[in-house]
């Protein structure tokens, strides 16, 4: 009988090859979908007896002397993989009767100690965004490119073209701060005050710059204690506001902090909010919010946000879109007039 099962195993149909691109693009799509809300009470009621039994078993196992385990050194992961979704608003059209466009795209970054690969404008699209539920873009004849309000450029409506950027760097380069580069992230202090001093020596005594660098570090390949220190540092910055427990996106819960942000070319009175998972310290969402009504948008409206979809160590090589040249021209949706 055993032989029969072995023979049957030999008769297994060929296993299909995994298409890594399809696999990763499906993953990126799936994790943006809403999740079911856990039925906590029902769960607790149903599984409470099992939890008690498990606790007894765990206690028994813990109290038993453990046999010596052979130590197997784990191979260090090669890449820090970050997949984020960026969304932002830009005011366009006639300054007397403006409307907005939204930019929605993903960025995938693979960071190692000596190189960085980024896929930008992934699954990107620029779409008209009505400020008052009107149809301003349609009324303007659905132009392919619309003028920025308060700027010199046009914004092209439609899909964005992805680009792959590969750079060889020495140390860990921070994308938002060109002069911030760390030989080792591991040596960064895990004490909020010491971390603040370390960041200050790199980018100066500017609360917003220190804050935004701390936020960037939270999404980098640092330890959990360093991540928590960065969050604590944010809370102590001048003008910072602790938001407490907040629910964002598809009912994800986190702890938030807000710091005052400089004005953009279209918005004033902006604050940057960061919501992180209280257990891991990993960021969930970063967004810029206007604190006063502007361009027909009420106070508290997000004008840009970055959703952290994946932040993980991986030991496989970056999966890049095959039809996009590495370090080719970046076709920005913001073009000359």
């Amino acid at each position, binding site marked *: 009988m055993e032989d*029969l*099962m072995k023979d*049957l195993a030999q*008769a297994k149909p060929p*296993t*299909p090859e995994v298409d890594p691109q399809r696999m990763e693009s499906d993953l990126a799509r799936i994790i943006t979908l809403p*999740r*079911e809300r856990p039925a906590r009470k029902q*769960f607790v009621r149903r599984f409470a007896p099992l939890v008690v039994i498990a606790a007894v078993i765990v206690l028994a196992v813990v109290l038993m002397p453990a046999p010596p385990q052979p130590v197997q050194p784990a191979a260090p992961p090669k890449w820090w993989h970050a997949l984020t979704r960026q969304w932002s608003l830009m005011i366009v059209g006639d300054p007397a009767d403006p409307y907005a466009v939204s930019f929605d795209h993903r960025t995938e970054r693979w960071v190692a100690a000596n190189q960085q690969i980024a896929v930008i404008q992934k699954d990107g699209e620029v779409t008209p965004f009505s400020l008052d539920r009107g149809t301003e873009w349609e009324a303007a004849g659905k132009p392919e490119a619309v003028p920025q309000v308060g700027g010199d450029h046009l914004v092209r409506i439609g899909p964005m073209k992805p680009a792959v950027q590969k750079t060889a760097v020495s140390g860990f380069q921070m994308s938002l701060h060109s002069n911030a580069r760390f030989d080792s992230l591991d040596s960064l202090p895990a004490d909020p005050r010491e971390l603040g001093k370390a960041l200050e020596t790199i980018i100066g005594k500017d609360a917003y710059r220190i804050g935004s660098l701390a936020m960037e570090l939270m999404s980098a390949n640092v330890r959990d204690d360093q991540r928590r220190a960065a969050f604590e540092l944010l809370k102590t910055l001048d003008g910072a506001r602790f938001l407490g427990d907040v629910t964002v996106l598809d009912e994800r819960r986190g702890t938030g902090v807000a710091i005052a942000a400089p004005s953009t070319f279209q918005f004033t009175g902006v604050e940057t909010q960061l919501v992180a998972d209280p257990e891991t310290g990993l960021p969930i969402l970063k967004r810029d919010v206007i604190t006063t009504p502007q361009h027909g948008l009420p106070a508290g409206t997000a004008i840009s946000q970055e959703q952290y979809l994946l932040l993980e160590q991986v030991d496989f090589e970056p999966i890049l879109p095959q039809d996009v040249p590495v370090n080719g021209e970046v076709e920005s949706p913001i073009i000359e007039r």
Partner: protein
Amino acid sequence: MEDFSAVYRECYPRVLAYAASHAGSRLAEDITSETFTIAWRKLDRMPSNALPWLIGIARNLVREARRQTTHYELADLPADDAFAVIELRAALASLSESDQEVLTLIAWHGLGAAEAAQVLGCTTATFFVRLHRARRRLQAALSSANFDRARESWKTS
């Protein structure tokens, strides 16, 4: 989320293989994608050993796909397989769907008895009984008169 992506990458090839062997390669990627979409929605229910749970989801989707179509694509089988392999697959195909499932979960998809029982929603003891009977029926199918005749015809053709 980190946990989900780790489980996703670890289990994807095996869920894909399951889907391909039961619904054909054309539908396999879509079924696998849908399996993980459902898993993501029900993430709070995902057990630590996720594979049997995922294959259970894929199994339901395969059944649904079969209901929606009058004929479903079988796995792409290479024509140059050994005679014994062809014979064994034919004997397997002559069994009931439930017998095939019991046997292939173990022999093709590498699940343990407890995991396979979880996929089928029965106890491990019940699974062992079903496995024992399915094996017997497969053995009987292989040594039946029909197969003997078929064997002869293949040899002479």
